[in-house]
């Protein structure tokens, strides 16, 4: 009987072996499918079981997103945004089934699942503490953010404000309006959140859209600084006093239409200095310069400013372009920031920043530092250079001209008493719409730039006679002043 008993024993061993293989199969192969199955409510509950790291600004002194321990058995930790609307497009939100913004981009650090936090997580696991995430400190300057938000909101316009530290690429201000309250999307109730989200998504004014990074617009005359940079770089015998032809209407080859100046006005006496052309924002000289430089030079110079290049930023960004190579007339139009020339406000701020930083383009970043739950810093802002957009000499010449724009050109609205401001206005036709987009890019103080800015006011929200100088420049002035005061 022992022979058959042994065979029965083997059968038992096989049964246990099959069970063990099967549990491993479940844990290793099927687990992925199961965790993403929407009938598995665990992932939903688990999001609220983590003591999620906070998001702060100003070296931890201002709280932007915090985690509240409700002691609730099911949804223990809830997310709150004390000043949600003001920071909505930067922070994003932490919803039951999705996330956006910094909440999404830094999710692994915030929820503690990043490999950098493995030791702390293991200790939490062994000591049975709820997992705790790292806290993220942003480069934003709350005082300036508040000024930008309040002023833009008070004007009732739609638009975007972004300010950068030209030397480090740190984002100082990022405001996009209209905005939304991320607190409504962070409650642990999938039904309510879905309803709130759908309402926002269906809104015609698109409050969920981060106008700083997620959408491109024709930059208008602000782009002339890029054309000017290409013009100066192409031949170093040129300087701001070099004269350029400035007809009242520029003939566009291959078309019957011509390129006029803003409002059809004349620009000087038919031949002006580059400085004068930029101060007055004449279209015809820059259109001519664009056509003279040709596609390759314009493309190369734009690329050095980061246009058309994928950008490694902490938030999703829309792709920028000067437009496809088509007829020569398009070259004249893109040189003044029209036609298919499409830029994000962030990109335009980058251009101002590169000029301010003696031609060196820095990588923009929102992250100041990341601190693990134990308080030690695991990541810190290290300024990194993206490209050299132009020589320091050319940058200086552009800077001088941009100062002239503020002192006696179209940008007088951006003057700050006691501070030398450099800038460029832009008023861009937005397709067939009668109302234009209003732009301003600039930096201050010109001698030692501490902030570079781009203000964008969306077409249609500021009337048909909106201009960069009249509408965008004063807002830029207030925000730059706030940044300089806070610094």
């Amino acid at each position, binding site marked *: *009987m*022992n*022979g*058959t*008993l*042994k*065979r*029965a*024993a083997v*059968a*038992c*061993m096989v*049964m*246990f072996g*099959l*069970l*063990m293989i*099967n*549990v*491993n199969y*479940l*844990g290793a192969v*099927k*687990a*992925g*499918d*199961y*965790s993403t*199955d929407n*009938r*598995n*409510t*665990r992932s939903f*509950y688990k999001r609220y*079981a983590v003591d999620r790291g906070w998001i702060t600004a100003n070296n931890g002194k201002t709280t932007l997103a915090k985690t509240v321990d409700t002691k609730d058995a099911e949804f223990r930790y809830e997310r709150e945004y004390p000043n949600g609307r003001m920071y909505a497009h930067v922070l994003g939100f932490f919803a039951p089934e999705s996330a956006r913004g910094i909440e999404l981009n830094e999710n692994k650090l915030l929820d503690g699942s990043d490999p950098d936090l493995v030791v702390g997580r293991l200790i939490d*696991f062994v*000591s*049975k*503490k709820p997992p705790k995430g790292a806290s993220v400190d942003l480069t934003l300057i709350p005082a300036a953010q508040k000024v930008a938000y309040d002023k833009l909101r008070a004007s009732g316009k739609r638009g975007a404000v972004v300010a950068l530290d030209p030397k480090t690429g740190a984002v100082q201000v990022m405001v996009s309006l209209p905005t939304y309250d991320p607190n409504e999307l962070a409650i642990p109730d999938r039904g309510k959140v879905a309803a709130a989200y759908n309402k926002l998504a269906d809104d015609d004014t698109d409050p969920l859209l981060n106008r700083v990074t997620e959408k491109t617009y024709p930059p208008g005359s602000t782009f002339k600084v890029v054309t000017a940079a290409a013009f100066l770089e192409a031949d170093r015998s040129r300087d701001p006093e070099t004269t350029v032809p400035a007809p009242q209407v520029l003939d566009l080859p291959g078309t019957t239409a011509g390129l006029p100046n803003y409002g059809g006005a004349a620009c000087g006496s038919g031949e002006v200095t580059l400085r004068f052309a930029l101060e007055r924002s004449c279209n015809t000289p820059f259109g001519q310069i664009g056509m003279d430089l040709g596609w390759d030079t314009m493309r190369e110079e734009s690329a050095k400013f980061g246009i058309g290049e994928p950008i490694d930023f902490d938030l999703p960004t829309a792709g920028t372009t000067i437009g496809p190579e088509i007829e020569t007339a398009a070259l004249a139009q893109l040189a003044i920031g029209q036609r298919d020339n499409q830029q994000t406000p962030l990109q335009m701020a980058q251009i101002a920043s590169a000029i301010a930083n003696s031609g060196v383009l820095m990588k923009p970043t929102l992250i100041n530092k990341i601190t693990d739950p134990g308080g030690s810093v695991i990541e810190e802002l290290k300024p990194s250079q993206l490209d050299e957009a132009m020589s320091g000499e050319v940058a200086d010449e552009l800077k001088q001209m941009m100062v002239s724009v503020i002192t006696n050109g179209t940008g007088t609205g951006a003057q700050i008493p006691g501070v030398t401001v450099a800038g460029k206005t832009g008023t861009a036709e937005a397709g067939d719409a009668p109302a234009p987009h209003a732009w301003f890019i600039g930096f201050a103080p010109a001698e030692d730039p501490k902030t570079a800015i781009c203000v964008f006011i969306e077409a249609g929200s500021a009337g048909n006679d909106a201009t960069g100088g009249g509408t965008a420049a004063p807002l830029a002035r207030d925000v730059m002043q706030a940044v300089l005061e806070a610094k």
Partner: protein
Amino acid sequence: MTTAPVAEAPAVPMTAKRRGAQLVMLAFAIVVVMGAYASVGLGINGQIPSGTFTYGLGLAALMFAAYGVLAKWAPWADPLLLPLVTLVNGLGLVIIYRIEQTGQGGASATNQLMWTALGVVMFSATLIVLKDHRALQRLTYTMGFIGLGLLVMPLLPFVGREINGARIWIGVGPFTIQPAEFSKLALVIFFAGYLVAKRDVLALAGRRLLFIDLPRARDLGPVLATWGLSLGVLILQKDLGSSLLVFGTFIVMLYVATQRTSWVLIGVLLFIGGAVLAGQLFGHVQARFEVWLHPEAPEFYDRELGGSFQLMQGLFAFGSGGILGTGLGEGFPNLIPLSFSDFIMAVVGEELGLTGLMALLMVYALIVQRGLRTALAARDPFSKLLAGGLSFILAWQVFIIVGGVTRLIPLTGLVTPFMSAGGSALLANWILIALLVRMSDAARRPPPQAIQNEGLTQVFTR
């Protein structure tokens, strides 16, 4: 059975009693359980539950009492069985306590501890009363009737109760008892006694057809009777699990007793026939099969009766456990219906992870292995068959239920031995272990030394 059992005895080395080692292992098992218990509290609210010591010391007192009985009445017994069972029973208590904390109705650690106490009483009583398990051989047919009677009891009016769609309960005062759990013990004893008596006929008579020895038609009687009984349980009580458990165990015991592979083939054919028949005739059998094949399908998931909701929730739990699990007290057992009963392994999978599952399966495998070792070492055919049958039914039950909840095989309801909440199963399984302990004591006890050993030798050589 070709070799005489006595001739095999020297093959098993007669080691020491190992009572000291057993005591250390028992203490270790209790420490593990207390640690797990404290861990549940830490996981839920960051505090060691106030009951850690009451529950822990209660369990310890029970188990050391069981140890005392074992040391006195079965001193040569296998030293591993009691610590292993203590570990599984204790972890079951912890998991039930953990589920109770979520407020899921029906889970009560206090009740389970009480039943554990009763289980230990039954264990001790069995060891004290049953001095020689071979006495059971004389009760073969009595056991057969008891087993049968217990099995059909839930069908009787007044005492029978139907809970969760299966008519496998009887009501006794405030308690409900699942007589099938006791019936399985009686039936294994009956099978062992019956097969020892009839095995020569069942093993030898027959004729050869092609390459296989077929038994005579009239010898098919017992197999067909058991098959009919299992089908009856399946049809009348809708208890797929017990039906499969009894029939499978009988076939394996028949094979062990007769060494005839043809019985296994006949058994498998009968099983397939029965399954197909039942699948065609009864909706609930077919439903289980469909759910097994496509648990993810929304039409089965959302089906009110016999749907895959519970199975899928269990699988989600296994999936979320990962290697180390979420940690005790940090999973979501409340998402799985009846997690304290049939699906307790899913809770283990989620909170203790693959590591915990593998360890637990290993402990079960070790219990079964110790039982089978006892069967190998036993000195008479009845003991061999009984120990083998009891060990196999334990392994088979673990396979059916764990295989079911992990979707290795179609899900048929059975309790997970020593873990699931429920008194009947706990009592019956403690008796099962007592029988194994009793038999291992007999098998490991050194045979009485013949006093005239040397004298005999001298007489022989003279």
